[in-house]
C-alpha cells in the first residue's frame, strides 16, 4: 500500500469544491430533466397530435409554412404549419415578420378552436443557423448542393 498523502487545508478545500460542484451539477441536471417538458418553447404538429391539447388552451406551435398553403383574405392570413409529417391549419390576423414565407420556419402562439384550427395571436419567424451571401446561396442552389428550407426573399 502506498502511504496516504496528508490532507493539507488546500487539498481539503479543493476536494470540497470538486465534491460540491458534482452534487450541484447532478442537482441541476435532475431539475432540468424534470422541467424539460415545460422548457420546450413550442410543439410540432406531430407532438401536438400526441398531446391532445384542449381548445382555448394557449400554446405555441412550430414548424415550416407548408408550400402553396398561404392564402390572404383581407387582413386575415391562412396557412398550414407542417413538420413534414403532420400539418395543421393556422389562421392569423396581424402583421407577419419579414422572413415569413412558404417553406420558412415559424412559431405561432395561440389556441385551437373547436374545429381544430389553430387561431394564432402572434406569428414569429424562426431562421436556421446558416449565413451566406446571396451569390453563394444562388450558386449552391443552382448546383443542387443545397436545398433551401426557406424560399429566397421575394
Amino acid at each position, binding site marked *: 500500500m502506498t502511504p496516504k498523502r496528508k490532507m493539507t487545508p488546500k487539498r481539503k478545500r479543493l476536494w470540497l469544491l470538486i465534491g460540491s*460542484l458534482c452534487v450541484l451539477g447532478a442537482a441541476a441536471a435532475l431539475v432540468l430533466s424534470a422541467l424539460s417538458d415545460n*422548457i420546450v418553447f413550442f410543439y410540432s404538429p406531430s407532438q401536438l397530435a400526441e398531446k391532445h391539447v384542449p381548445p382555448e388552451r394557449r400554446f405555441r406551435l412550430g414548424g415550416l409554412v407548408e408550400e402553396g398553403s398561404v392564402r390572404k383574405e383581407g387582413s386575415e392570413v391562412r396557412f398550414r404549419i407542417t413538420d413534414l409529417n403532420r400539418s395543421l391549419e393556422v389562421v392569423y390576423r396581424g402583421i407577419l415578420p419579414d422572413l415569413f414565407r412558404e417553406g420558412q420556419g415559424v412559431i405561432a402562439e395561440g389556441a385551437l378552436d373547436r374545429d381544430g384550427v389553430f387561431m394564432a395571436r*402572434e406569428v414569429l419567424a424562426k431562421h436556421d443557423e446558416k*449565413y451566406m451571401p446571396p451569390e453563394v446561396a444562388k450558386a449552391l442552389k443552382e448546383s443542387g448542393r443545397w436545398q433551401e428550407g426557406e424560399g429566397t426573399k421575394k
Partner: protein
Amino acid sequence: MADLHFLANPARFRRFSQRVLPALSIVTALALAIGLYWGLVVAPPDYQQGDTVRIMFLHVPTASLAMGGYLLLAALGASLLVWRHPLAALMARATAPVGATYAAVCLITGSLWGRPMWGTYWVWDARLTSFLLLFFLYLGHIALSRAYDDSERGDRAAAILAIVGAINVPIIKFSVDWWNTLHQPASIMRMGGPSIDPSLLWPLFWMMGALALLFVTLVLLRTETEIDRRRLEIAENQD
C-alpha cells in the same frame, strides 16, 4: 507580515500590467476599427437577412465573451477559495462589471436583431432566458462582492456565487440543442464545422479577437485600480 504577503503578487502583476497596457490599448483600438469596417462595410449581406446580419458581428462575440468571462470569474473564485490567491479577488472584482457589460450588449443587440427577423424583441425561450440569467448572475456578483463592510468576506461570498453560477454556462451553450427554442442552433462550434460562409465567418472571428482584446485590456486596467484601492484601504485601516 500578512500585508507583505498580500501585496507580493499584486505588485508584480501591477508592474507587468503597466508595461503591457499602452501597447495593448493601441492594438485593441486598431483591431476594433478594422473589425468594424470589415463587418459593417466590406462583408456581404446575408441571402435572407440582408444587412441585418451585421448585428452578428457584435452580438455573437459579446455572447461568447460574456460566457467565457463568467468561466474566468468562476476560475478566479476557485483560486480564491482553494488557494487563497491574493490577486484572484481583485481580478474578479475587475472582471464582473466588464462581463456584465458584454452580456448587456449581447442582450440589447439580440433584441434589436430579433425584432426585424423573428418579429419580436424578446421571448422566454431556453436560450434567451438562460442568457438573461447570466446577466443577473454578473449583477449579483457585483452586488455581493460589495455587500460586506469587510471586503474579504464579500470576495468569498461572490466567489461562491461565481462557481455555482458557472453551471449556467453549459446550459446556455446547449440550450438550443436540448430544447426547441426560437433561437437558432449553434453556427460556429457545432458538429460538421461552421455553417457560416467564410466571407461572413472571418470578420466574425476577427471581431471575436478584437473584443477579446478589449475585454483583457479593460480587466487589466480595472485590476490595477482594484490593487490601488485595496492598498488605500489597508493604509487607512493601519492609521
